């Protein structure tokens, strides 16, 4: 019977199997990096490759940078701890957001053609403003470092649970290997490594998710247990608050507290997939694709967006089998659910395979973010301030900066780990959703957007983020309510961006024509081919160089 399944503990066999599997994945990623080394000789090539990435690599890499330790590890903790109401941070509707990213992000190619090599550089070219580029780059670095901390927490937790050993040395080794394949492989190496990792956790996540439901006695049994369960706090503190509904009245700082929080979480998932710079950057090196290839890209994205729900199912299965016992396992608590289910179902091999999936998800997101931050510093700051800097110097700088950017969040995690992984990361996610969805994505489509609208949105978003319920918001009601805070950040960014844009002067039409070329009218029957070609040339002006 499922009820009699003991909570597994690490063994020498599981420790060995986990180590071998994770190292195999990292070595494969590193070899991919070295393969692309000879193709990443110049600074440009290192940053965006040869713009020849197809739909399969782009689709898998996009989902790999999107689905992080939060999705492949933290989601089980959410459903285990909060029952059905954990679904809102699990992101059961995450496909809505990522499909929006696929549709909007593909236009990044147009800006790459105009000289953009980083996401903030898209903003510089769009607004003809170095100020916007520097502000966007700075905001990205701050928010991405916070987000990276969550990835290390996921890797540290799974390592400790499955091997029973101290994790610092192992994580440092992981970080070094990740740095190596970013440094040597650049964008192309990272993009293909991401695709490999995305494929790994899609297959593993689906298999373990479906298997866990039946391992726990089937969907009806799980639903029955969750319907009768109450919330249990860290350390095993029992309450009488039921977790059988889609809201749980735990306290206003919890996203699933009430329907206002739910709506805020939905908007966060809708906007943040496009707002995450590491996601939208996946299109910088994409080649032109056909409609059929574009459909394949969307299909891959859709398939991998089911993976977070599969991991969430593992958490529900764990709750059905072990009750709230995991809430006494400090300091990991409910976040231990997925790893322990994988060990209970598959022994050392199951633990090893699932741990590889968690590492793949976490390291792929870190890799995507570190690439962004390294290019933020070298391109958006150094080159922005000193445009005469030699490309080889910039390339060297970018490669060097990879190392501290990968170590800083690791050190943060080691010295001050966040108590609840997904809740911690959602703070950074809301700010990224609010700021970059508008400043980068909407600006590619909205002609009337201005640089002052973008500047106002960045400044407002960064300031409003500090009102998070666990930061200053706890003392400033109503910002102690997660939903109020998140809607204030995202809605405020939208409002500020639109209002300030409408009150200020956009770029002149001749400059905007480069970003928004008119659609070519079909050739008139009376036109000769030469006349039609001449008309097309008039309607599509040549790219203008942005003011330096």
């Amino acid at each position, binding site marked *: 019977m499922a009820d009699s399944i003991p909570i597994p503990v690490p063994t020498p066999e599981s420790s060995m199997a986990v180590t071998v599997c994770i190292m195999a994945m990292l070595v494969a990623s590193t070899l991919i990096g070295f393969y692309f080394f000879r193709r990443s000789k110049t600074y440009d090539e290192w940053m965006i490759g040869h713009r020849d990435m197809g739909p399969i690599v782009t689709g898998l890499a996009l989902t790999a940078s999107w689905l992080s330790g939060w999705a492949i590890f933290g989601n089980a903790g959410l459903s285990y701890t909060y029952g059905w109401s954990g679904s809102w941070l699990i992101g059961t509707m995450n496909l*809505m957001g990522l499909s929006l990213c696929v549709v909007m992000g593909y236009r990044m190619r147009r800006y790459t053609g105009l000289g953009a090599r980083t996401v903030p550089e898209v903003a510089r070219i769009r607004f003809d403003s170095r100020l916007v580029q520097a502000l966007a780059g700075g905001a990205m670095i701050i928010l991405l470092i916070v987000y990276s901390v969550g990835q290390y927490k996921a890797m540290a937790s799974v390592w400790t649970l499955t091997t029973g050993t101290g994790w610092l040395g192992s994580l440092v080794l992981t970080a070094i290997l990740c740095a190596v394949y970013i440094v040597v492989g650049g964008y192309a190496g990272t993009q293909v490594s991401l695709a490999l990792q995305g494929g790994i956790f899609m297959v593993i996540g689906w298999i373990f998710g479906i298997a866990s439901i039946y391992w726990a006695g089937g969907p009806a049994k799980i639903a029955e247990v969750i319907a009768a369960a109450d919330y249990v706090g860290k350390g095993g503190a029992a309450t009488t608050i039921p977790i059988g509904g889609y809201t749980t009245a735990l306290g206003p700082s919890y996203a699933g507290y009430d329907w206002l929080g739910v709506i805020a979480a939905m908007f966060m998932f809708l906007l943040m997939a496009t707002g995450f710079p590491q996601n939208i950057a996946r299109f910088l090196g994409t080649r*032109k694709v056909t409609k059929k290839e574009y459909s394949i890209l969307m299909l891959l994205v859709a398939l991998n*967006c089911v993976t977070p*729900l599969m991991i969430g199912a593992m958490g529900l299965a764990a709750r059905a089998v072990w009750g709230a016992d995991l809430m006494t396992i400090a300091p990991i608590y409910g976040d231990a659910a997925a790893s322990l289910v994988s060990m209970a179902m598959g022994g050392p091999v199951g633990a090893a395979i699932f741990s590889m999936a968690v590492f793949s998800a976490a390291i792929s997101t870190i890799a995507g973010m570190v690439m962004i931050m390294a290019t933020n510093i070298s391109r958006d700051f150094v080159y922005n301030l000193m445009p005469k800097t030699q490309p080889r110097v910039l390339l060297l700088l970018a490669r060097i900066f990879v190392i501290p950017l990968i170590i800083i969040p690791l050190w943060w995690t080691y010295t001050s780990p966040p108590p609840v992984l997904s809740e911690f990361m959602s703070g950074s996610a809301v700010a990224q959703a609010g700021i970059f969805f508008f400043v980068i994505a909407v600006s590619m489509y909205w002609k009337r957007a201005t640089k002052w609208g973008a500047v106002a949105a960045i400044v407002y978003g960064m300031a409003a983020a500090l009102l998070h319920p666990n930061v200053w918001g706890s003392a400033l009601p109503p910002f102690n309510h997660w939903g109020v805070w998140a809607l204030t950040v995202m809605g405020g960014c939208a409002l500020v961006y639109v209002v300030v844009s409408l009150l200020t002067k956009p770029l002149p039409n001749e400059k905007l024509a480069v970003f928004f070329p008119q659609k070519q009218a079909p050739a008139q029957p009376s036109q000769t081919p030469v006349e039609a070609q001449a008309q097309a040339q008039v309607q599509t002006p040549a790219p203008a160089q942005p003011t330096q």
Partner: protein
Amino acid sequence: MMRIPVAVWLLALAACFIAVPVLAATVGGWYAYWGTMALSAVWAGIMLWLKLTRYWEVDE
């Protein structure tokens, strides 16, 4: 064949989004959990359809 206006597709997208919390509040359980995924798949299908048929840009 009649061409469905873009506004209708946008209304369908909004309906998918609104249906998520409605489904959670009224039905709940596994049906809401996987139903949300199904609604998201419909959403993604509409987005893809709109991109390919109405907003495909040759220069992209």
